[in-house]
């Protein structure tokens, strides 16, 4: 290159240029449409369905059920943030949840293992799945997409093998209580989701460890050359995801009072849709916990409202698929301000060029 790379983008200067941003200005900026579009979308959906189906949509019970139902898929989504932040596209996250759910049911019903031990074993098994995937990704250098896709298929085979493709029943009432007992009107999984979210948020956003994980996901070579042991970061992220997904699976089995070998599929896409839609929120294009939680609720409200309005059963799948595409498309657009301004400049230059061309 003979020329200075002059691709600087002139964005409206934020007040962080001079000292610390004032709280009010910061709040206003973080609540802007571009930064928190999901919140506005939520308001929009809320108004829409409140007018459409006021009798069912506006009941307290509706919202309790919605939270209870979404706690488990929210948990899967929060777990997925860790590997995605580290640059690992974990397509096995749904199967990891399914595996945890079937394993705990199998231990309880077929082997009479005490509840705490059965849960512990399931969580450890989930973590081990993460270890194996990290080793394949970092040591065998198989791309994460392939590793996790294959792992997902293998896990589904294991699930069917353990369960004999049958539902596992008779898990015991005290196990069912875990996911169905209520505190202040909502079930325990909601609190578990809140606690796990807080922990993941703290590590990812506040600690040096989280910074290293995100650097690994941002540019693995640059992270490595900055002295970060990137393989360890990937290992940590996949273990975290494996454990959290297994926990979600355990809660699902508890909620259904059944070890269901077919639940894997239903957690994969909603989790991806939520995390990617969440990444467009608050943090300017990075995977983040708060955005993910907001996205989980927004997507759930969308699905719920449509269901109440009598939409067909295939609609949630359609909704989640479209939402994932829209979220990623929007994230790409948002993430590349250079591409955007370049496009504008191209148009402007074309106009200017026409004008300045000799007649």
């Amino acid at each position, binding site marked *: *290159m*003979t020329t200075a*790379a*002059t691709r600087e983008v002139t*964005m409206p200067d934020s007040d962080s240029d001079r000292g610390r941003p004032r709280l009010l200005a910061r709040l206003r900026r973080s609540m802007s449409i571009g930064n928190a579009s999901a919140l506005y979308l939520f308001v929009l959906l809320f108004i829409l369905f409140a007018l459409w189906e006021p009798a069912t949509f506006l009941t307290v019970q509706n919202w309790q059920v919605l939270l209870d139902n979404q706690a488990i898929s929210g948990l899967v989504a929060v777990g997925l943030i860790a590997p995605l932040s580290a640059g690992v596209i974990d397509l096995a996250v749904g199967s990891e949840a399914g595996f945890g759910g079937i394993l705990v049911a199998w231990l309880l019903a077929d082997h009479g293992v005490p509840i705490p031990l059965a849960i512990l074993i399931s969580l450890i098994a989930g973590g081990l799945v993460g270890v194996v995937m990290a080793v394949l990704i970092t040591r065998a250098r198989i791309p994460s997409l392939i590793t996790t896709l294959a792992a997902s298929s293998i896990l589904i085979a294991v699930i069917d093998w353990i369960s004999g493709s049958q539902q596992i029943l008779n898990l015991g009432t005290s196990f069912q209580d875990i996911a169905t007992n209520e505190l202040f009107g909502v079930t325990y999984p909601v609190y578990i989701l809140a606690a796990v979210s807080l922990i993941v948020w703290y590590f990812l956003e506040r600690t040096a460890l989280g*910074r290293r994980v995100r650097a690994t996901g941002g540019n693995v070579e*640059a992270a490595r050359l900055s002295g970060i*042991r990137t393989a360890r970061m990937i290992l940590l992220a996949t273990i975290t995801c494996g454990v959290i997904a297994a926990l979600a699976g355990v809660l699902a089995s508890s909620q259904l009072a059944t070890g269901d070998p077919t639940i894997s599929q239903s957690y994969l896409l909603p989790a991806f849709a939520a995390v990617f839609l969440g990444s467009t929120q608050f943090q300017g294009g990075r995977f983040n916990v708060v955005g993910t939680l907001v996205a989980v609720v927004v997507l759930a409200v969308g699905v719920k409202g449509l269901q109440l309005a009598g939409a067909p059963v295939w609609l949630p799948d359609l909704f989640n698929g479209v939402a994932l595409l829209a979220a990623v498309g929007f994230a790409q657009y948002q993430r590349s301000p250079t591409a955007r301004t370049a496009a504008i400049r191209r148009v402007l230059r074309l106009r200017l*060029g026409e004008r300045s061309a000799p007649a």
Partner: protein
Amino acid sequence: MTAGRPVPPPDELARRRPLLRVSHLSKTFIGTKALDDVSLEVAAGEVVAIVGQNGSGKSTLVKLLAGIHQPDPGGAIEVSDGSGRLVPLGRDGSGLHFIHQDLGLLPMLSTTENLDLGRPLGRRWITPLHRNAEHARAAELTRRFGAAIDVRAPVAQLSPAERAIVAIARALDGWQHPDNVLVLDEPTTAFHRDEVSRLFDAVRRVAAEGAGIIFISHRLDEVRALADRVLILRDGRQVAESAGGELDDASLVTAIVGTSVAEGPPTAAATGPVVLSVDALRGRHVHGLTLSVRAGEVVGLSGVLGSGREDLNALIFGAQRPTSGEITVAGNRLPPGDMVTAIERGAAFVPADRHRHGAVMTMSMRENLTLPGLRGLPRRFGAIRMSAESDEARRWARQVELRPPAPDRPLSTFSGGNQQKVVLAKWLRTSPRLLLLDEPTQGVDVGAKAAIYRLVQQAAAQGSAVLVASSDAKELATLCGRVLLVDQGQVTGELTGAALTETALAHAALTAAPTGRAPREESAS
């Protein structure tokens, strides 16, 4: 188009016919004039060489010809339309054919398949290909250029010169009419010396068929061997144009480098203890290299691509794993390929490619700054104290004159120069004993360049040992107190004091023998 076709001129006249005319071409990028009023004419059967240092405007000229950039108003590029008339260059760049350094071949496909890629297959896309006919055609095409190659073998198995010939054959194959100009952009970088002549034979055959050739190279012996005329660019301007045989090496070098070489401030003489010592180091492109750098010293590494110059810093830092040899920093041995230990012992490495290796563009300036030294940040309950980190980021933003001084912006939104300043700052923040720099000002504007030089010299003044690998002779002459000449993976000479001038460095680099090692894809892994 209604005018009658001109009578075909006599043969001698046909060879003088201009195929490409570039007049008063300029290109301004924000802040810099990359190309300034360059005019050029290429006639049929003529080979015109364009030479110049890094930053002289060669690449800009090529990109203008290729239509990647638009020239400033007032300049014009005209090409022959096949009937002897010159018409403005169309947006599709027809009439001009480019062979770039990387050739644009698909290595896993055979010669035949590569040749077919450039050809419209018409309606045959659904019918089976006639394989034998295709192979025979490909073999005939490449034989025209003196290459007897197995057209069924993947091009990855061919020698660099054979690959270049395949690329030329492919470009030629697509020609609609004989009035064409072939632009060869540093085609011989990856060549063995004895292979260069094979390519040159092929190029002469193309010229003999009536095409015009633009040949861009930094090797003066090649330029003199091949070119009918030489155009010399310096700082974007056309400084000389002469017939190929007229110039000797010395006058070419003077024309390329210029006579008014401004020498930088002489770096303080090295007085500190030895910080880095490298003994018999071996690794990719490095073959038993020995050197030492003292505290406070800025030492340059000069050498052509493939000489080992571009690998040495990565080997010392551990980004590439050396096969043998000993590296010590301040008396401590560095284990091979262990960057974490290298950083702990005071090493810092600014790689050449900041996008791929230097920084995490999606993270903010602040987060990039503190990445190598996260352990040193003040914490509360295990969490980084954001206010302390922000204060530090602002301090460094001032220190390196970051524009705009907004540490919380994603690094991708800064200009190249400011990004590079951040990459440098993140290592200066760790107070390194040893600072390893690869092409520290590549793709950086003039202002940022000055700031980077100042920061590097400050670091040296504070006792860092600095090793700079650069392909920019001016940079080495300005920045370094001592420059090591690297060739064939070893140190073959040293320039220091009054002998260390841009001219001397350029002369050493321009007359170095080709190393014969293909530059693989640049990678720190």
